[in-house]
């Protein structure tokens, strides 16, 4: 039986061309987006911008309260989410792998990863802001974001725990160690770089989230720094959103400048995560 090869050769070339074109367009659009934001925002990016509060006049409006808000928010979120996330992952990976409760938790975590972030805002609104009486505060925001980040954190930590070979655990058990001793002395230290990398990536995702914070009432015009956990606050993405939503075109420049600041923060965080991963990946496989 014979078949012409020529036809399929040209079809393959066409396919490759189309695929490469699609990828080029997508990545090209990304480049255009970044360049556009950079060009728009560059004029406003200066020291006064970084150190002033928002104002009714675009030229005087600055991003200080948003920067401080984002930083405080992230630190609080990390403090709440890390112990819970790592604890839950350890439970699922090391303790109760086949118990029905573990399956329930597992299914929940997987499902929560697919819930739109704004719904976390509604949860935070009713539970943290109203029921627990925390008001539209930094604490309420941090707790809401902690719940949002939790599923990703659990997933990332589980990956890191799984990467530790079973033989290490076996050796530890055979020497008479209990389960927690094995986890604490052998598994966790080896999984730590992976956990760190995963959490930094999870938090960098959270930094860009505005929807849940808007819903719990993070205000878009804050002209002071939050002085306590119960103070109102704002955050970088919310400030950007506020400026982009103004009818006065003058604020668009500020929005672009804010975007540059946000992207720089993300770049730094991701850079740290990649560095941690590279630096500590070798240890297991000498």
């Amino acid at each position: 039986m014979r078949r012409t090869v020529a036809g399929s050769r040209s079809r393959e070339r066409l396919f490759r061309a189309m695929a490469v074109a699609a990828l080029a367009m997508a990545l090209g659009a990304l480049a255009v987006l970044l360049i556009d934001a950079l060009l728009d925002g560059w004029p406003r990016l200066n020291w006064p911008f970084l150190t002033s509060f928002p104002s009714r006049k675009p030229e005087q409006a600055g991003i200080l309260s948003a920067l401080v808000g984002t930083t405080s928010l992230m630190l609080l979120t990390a403090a709440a989410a890390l112990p819970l996330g790592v604890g839950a992952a350890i439970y699922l990976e090391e303790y109760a792998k086949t118990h029905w409760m573990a399956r329930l938790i597992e299914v929940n975590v997987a499902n929560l990863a697919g819930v739109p972030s704004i719904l976390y805002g509604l949860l935070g609104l009713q539970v943290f802001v109203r029921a627990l009486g925390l008001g539209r505060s930094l604490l309420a925001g941090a707790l809401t974001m902690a719940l949002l980040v939790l599923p990703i954190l659990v997933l990332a930590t589980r990956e890191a725990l799984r990467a530790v070979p079973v033989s290490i655990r076996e050796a530890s058990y055979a020497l008479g160690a209990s389960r927690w001793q094995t986890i604490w002395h052998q598994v966790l230290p080896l999984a730590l770089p992976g956990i760190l990398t995963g959490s930094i990536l999870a938090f960098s995702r959270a930094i860009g989230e505005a929807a849940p914070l808007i819903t719990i009432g993070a205000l878009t015009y804050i002209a002071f720094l939050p002085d306590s956990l119960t103070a109102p606050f704002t955050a970088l993405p919310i400030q950007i959103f506020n400026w982009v939503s103004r009818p006065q075109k003058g604020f668009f420049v500020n929005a672009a400048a804010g975007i540059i600041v946000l992207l720089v923060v993300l770049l730094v965080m991701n850079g740290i995560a990649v560095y941690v991963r590279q630096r500590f990946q070798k240890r297991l496989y000498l």
Partner: protein
Amino acid sequence: MEQAIGGALFLCGAVSVLTTGGIVAVLIVETVAFFREVPLAQFLTDPQWTPLFVDKHFGILPLVAGTVLTSAIAILVAMPAGLLSAIYLSEFASAKVRGAVKPLLEILAGIPTVVYGYFALLFVTPLLQQVIPQLAGFNALSPGLVMGLMIIPMVSSLSEDAMYAVPQSLREAAYALGSSRLQVAWRVVAPAACSGIAASLLLAVSRAIGETMIVAIAAGQQPRLTLNPLVPVETLTAYIVQISLGDTPTGTIEYKTIFAVGMTLFLGTLGLNLVSLWLRERVRERYA
């Protein structure tokens, strides 16, 4: 001591169950209160959504239309681009190309959505207006296209995973029968992975439906029951943002609308996620 530690770790895990329970409870409580004042029939069939006007209508269809319209445009962009990318990266590209392209695609997924919203409003819309003069300043087309761009990595990498799960033995059989690489990819691998690919598309749609900031910035705040992508619309998510930014007092019917809308959103994404999960389970069974 061991037991106490085990118990503490269990509680950490239980937080996720509590979170799900919390979201469901919060939505149900307020939605039930909402439906005491607004009949379900009106909610499902009224073609207008005007809870803030004097003449109040509580029909969810305009918001659903806005969400469906923007998400449909998004998936029309992301599906071909994502699948082409997935097939290319999985079956054709060298390891070097794959190693370079995949991280770049991940960057697309990591850009904060407010940035995409800015891009949609201030770059894409003006650009499109030069080609389509009747395009309104707020419309469904721009955010739809930009959302599509955002979810390309999701479609691409999930579809790629699905194709990776297809056993090498199938490919070898096809090659042994004289197939070209394209034929193997198109006729053997993609069909075998089709459940997994469908699952990934559903997840991408779910992501688009739940997206808030891009549409809040660029789609507008005019709930409109239409399939016209050139005019302002409002999505389910953007409505919640609109109310949250305002001064609606708690306990009023307007306040309760955000939960009814939230419930609609929740049920929609839940349905898509469950079907997607079911499809992926089927794939696992086939190749277990």
